């Protein structure tokens, strides 16, 4: 393998590690916000102006997560395939594996929270 490719692989490993770290930390606030908005929608009195505002905010966050989630899934696949096939040094491999599994765990958890949805009353 030539030097240019080794250097590209190193750069990929560094960028991927930093992206995985950044987006893992972004998923927790999304989970928290999602739970909070769901509680607020469920508590608001049905049909009130407050109900509509919070319900719309809930749906907007849900939609925004679906878009982000699809990109994060691609990132996870890209890193996974890099780990599976590319020439990666042991330390970078270890770091990428840990960060990848962390991101995937949080992604899965967030998907579950987002997909729970609202009760029939609150989603009307």
């Amino acid at each position: 393998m030539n030097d240019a490719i080794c250097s590209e692989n190193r750069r990929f490993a560094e960028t991927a590690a930093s992206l995985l770290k950044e987006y893992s930390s972004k998923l927790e606030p999304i989970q928290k916000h999602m739970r909070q908005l769901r509680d607020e929608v469920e508590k608001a009195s049905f049909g009130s102006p407050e109900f509509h505002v919070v319900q719309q905010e809930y749906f907007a966050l849900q939609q925004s997560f679906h878009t982000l989630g699809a990109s994060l899934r691609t990132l996870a696949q890209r890193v996974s395939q890099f780990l599976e096939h590319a020439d990666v040094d042991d330390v970078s491999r270890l770091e990428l594996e840990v960060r990848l599994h962390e991101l995937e765990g949080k992604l899965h958890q967030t998907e579950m929270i987002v997909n729970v949805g609202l009760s029939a009353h609150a989603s009307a």
Partner: protein
Amino acid sequence: MCEQGGPVVQWLWRNKDWVLDRVKEIREWLVSSRNPPDQPGSSLLIIGPGGVGKSTAARILSGNYDPLLDMPGEYDESLKIEHYSLKDDPAVGLVVPPGQKHRRDPTWNDIESSLSAGEYHGIILVCSYGYHSLGLISYKHHHLYAGDDQAFLRSYLDASRAEEVNVLQRLSPHIKASDRKCWLVTLVTKQDLWWNDNQQVERHYREGPYADQIGEIADHKGRSNFRHELILGSLVIRNFVTGVGERLAETVAGYDQQYRVSSVRRLWESLDALRQWEAGS
């Protein structure tokens, strides 16, 4: 308000406790008849290295992908264990763990314990004679690439074939550990890429290290408790292309949809035959 409605609704409301008890009993009966407590669980394991076509096989067997009507999608690596139900018998679950090496320990350990405990009565080990999809990476970034495309393909196929044997070796002690009668199908996919070497491919799985492993399992479990079937075929017809568009190998000229449909039919027929064998008929 609750007393409104027709006489049936009023009767149900007056006797709601009795009605709820009966509903509960019926629900319990339905659950117990689907999965009797004295019977082992009914699941098939679809396993293999990454990029061999496990999810495609599961989607076909579950009816989520129709090989005649649906277009094959791009390779889409699964990040977690997938669960499906067999189309012809929804009580039978299909469990599909991801196959990448770095995902095996986190997802396969529990599956291997279940295998040892006899929770799977059938295993479909998916292989592809080394043609494991590379996904979103250029082959030039592969650790086996040393500047020559054809030499890379040869080493990649050899390494991937060895990986298929490694997977069988890893599963082997768990299959042997179970007392349960079980079967194993080796489903060799991507026949459209190796159709010209069909006999060589068959020999590869019927003789040599792969077959030795199968022989060891069969000797350990006994012929009446273990059956192995080899199925060669294609679930989709597609050139061997990386996710970044590099073509590494092409579908063999003349391999058409008829061959593919026959492959899927052979898979169904083998599963039916194995399930009959399993039931003792």
